[in-house]
């Protein structure tokens, strides 16, 4: 049985159409007009225990709203959510023990308490025993380096410190399912790396993770499954590698030779690849389909022709693929 299951999940936000100022407010009292905005539109999603899923989409696509629906924060306009077979509103407290949520844009730490105290309060809310809590904190500390920020008061944390503390806060109770909504937003690269390493560690422990991000570097090397949402609808749900295999087959081999080689020579020795000269006379770019030829084969062939000084293989990122999907250039599925 899937641990997270959504069927026909729909959320419509209703916004009053008010004219500007007092006059508009008064007019609205008499003639109520509303605009409906469909944020999430008949989403079906099921996630198996232990799965790691990336949930991506352009800004305003409905990513956060989906997370809020899946965690029971919002009541769906239509459709149904089950967490481990439970209804998130009816069995709110039971579900709360099983899920952990992090909203990158918002902290759950108490602004007037030191981080250690915030975490201890959460420990007591979830009824985590002290031994388990200590063990968990020690493990979080290994990757997140919490030690230095434990005595800092919530309001005085830097963004990176806050995010690390918030990650610990979301996982204090060892939830089975974790939703991470934009968990790296605004972080500098060093902190991002550390946080990403932390995602991998919780995934490796068997926690079900749903990661929402607009930074696609977050998802590479993290999950196998990719779900893309656009304008409230799921437009792709499948294997991340499959997407790459299908739409990101091209590799670019950059080589530097000891002496210039005629382009023609290179081209005839590498049929099926495109060879171009680069900025200096001894540099070349070889484009090839990785299913037609391996990078090793290309390098071996070139090494037989001339002396290679240096080479590098570029792999198109999933980011490029998804960007092309957003822009309508690519249709998946």
């Amino acid at each position, binding site marked *: 049985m899937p641990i997270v299951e959504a069927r026909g999940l729909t959320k419509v*936000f209703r916004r009053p159409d008010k004219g500007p100022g007092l006059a508009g407010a008064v007019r609205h009292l008499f003639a109520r007009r509303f605009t409906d*905005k469909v*944020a999430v539109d008949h989403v079906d999603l099921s996630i198996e225990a232990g799965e790691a899923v990336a949930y991506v989409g352009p800004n305003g696509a409905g990513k*956060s*709203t989906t997370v*809020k629906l899946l*965690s*029971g*924060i*919002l*009541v769906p306009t239509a459709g149904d959510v089950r967490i481990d077979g439970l209804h998130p*509103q009816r069995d*709110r*407290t*039971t579900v*709360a*023990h099983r*899920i*952990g*949520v992090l*909203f990158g*844009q*918002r902290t*759950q730490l*108490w602004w*007037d*308490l030191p981080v250690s*105290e915030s975490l201890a*309060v*959460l420990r*007591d*809310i*979830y*009824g985590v025993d002290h031994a388990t809590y200590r063990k968990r904190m020690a493990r979080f500390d290994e990757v997140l380096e919490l030690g230095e920020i434990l005595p800092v*008061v919530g309001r005085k944390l830097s963004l990176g410190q806050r995010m690390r503390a918030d990650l610990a806060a979301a996982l204090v109770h060892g939830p089975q399912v974790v939703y991470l909504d934009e968990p790296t937003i605004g972080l500098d690269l060093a902190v991002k790396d550390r946080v990403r390493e932390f995602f991998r560690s919780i995934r490796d422990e068997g926690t079900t993770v749903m990661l929402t991000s607009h930074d696609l570097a977050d998802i590479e090397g993290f999950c196998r499954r990719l779900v893309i949402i656009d304008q409230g609808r799921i437009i792709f749900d499948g294997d991340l590698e499959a997407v790459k295999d299908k739409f990101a087959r091209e590799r670019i081999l950059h080589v530097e030779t000891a002496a210039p080689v005629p382009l023609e020579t290179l081209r005839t020795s590498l049929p099926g690849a495109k060879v171009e000269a680069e900025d200096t006379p001894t540099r070349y770019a070889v484009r090839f389909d990785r299913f037609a030829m391996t990078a090793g084969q290309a390098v071996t062939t070139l090494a037989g022709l001339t002396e290679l000084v240096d080479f590098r293989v570029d792999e198109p990122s999933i980011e490029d693929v998804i960007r092309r999907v957003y822009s309508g250039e690519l249709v998946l599925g």
Partner: protein
Amino acid sequence: MRTVRLYLRLLGAHFRSLLEYEADFVILVVATVLMQVVNIVFLAALFAKVPALNGWTFWSVLMMFGAVALAEGVGSLFFDGMWSLAWQINRGELDYFLVRPYPVALQSSSAKIGVNGLSNIVMGIIMIGTGLAHVDIAWTPWRVLLGALLLISSVVIKLSINLATNAVSFWLSSPTPLFAFAMHQVGDLARFPLSIYPIALKAALGAVLPFAFISFFPVAYLLDTGQSRWIGLLTPLVAAYCAVAAAVIFKRGMRRYESAGN
């Protein structure tokens, strides 16, 4: 029991940061004591010239003022976070409350400690106590028990009205609890005997928003004064009704919660 223990834990967490600003703490306490002292001086000055107000003596009205002060004090000291509900809703702070295994209303109300409540509780107890010491009541164990029950019910009613009126913020989009605050001020009318008011106000304070059950009716029953003293006996029922109504309104409101940033 766990709920209560955890509540004190949540509330107590703010205690240390409260003591950080010691001078402010003192100012707040002094200011609220001053407010009650002004009330007492006013009542004393009034009743120095007139023996009774519609049959109500200084001591009985003092008790009504005391009951309101006490109920308000408990509200501030232990449940001040309720007054931040509008703000919490507007800022989407309920998101995290909703994914924690603890009642949302209690997470909201424990978000703050209102130190001013401390002085209101103390002043309220002094006013009620002084009032009781100066009136003739034949104290029996049963009456003591009933008095305690009435007092607790009175506090529950005030808290329920606070919760219900603040929960109205789920429907209004204002980040400040205007409605709740206005109703809170209307509640000050109930510090005086209800009998002095015109019928519309009697209905409003006795039935619609039963502020009169915080002070007037229980005191009337206890002192055996006034025309409809038996109504005071209904106070525990009214308290139960208010608590349930507040919980229902809050639950309904929560379904409307739309988080922030949409």
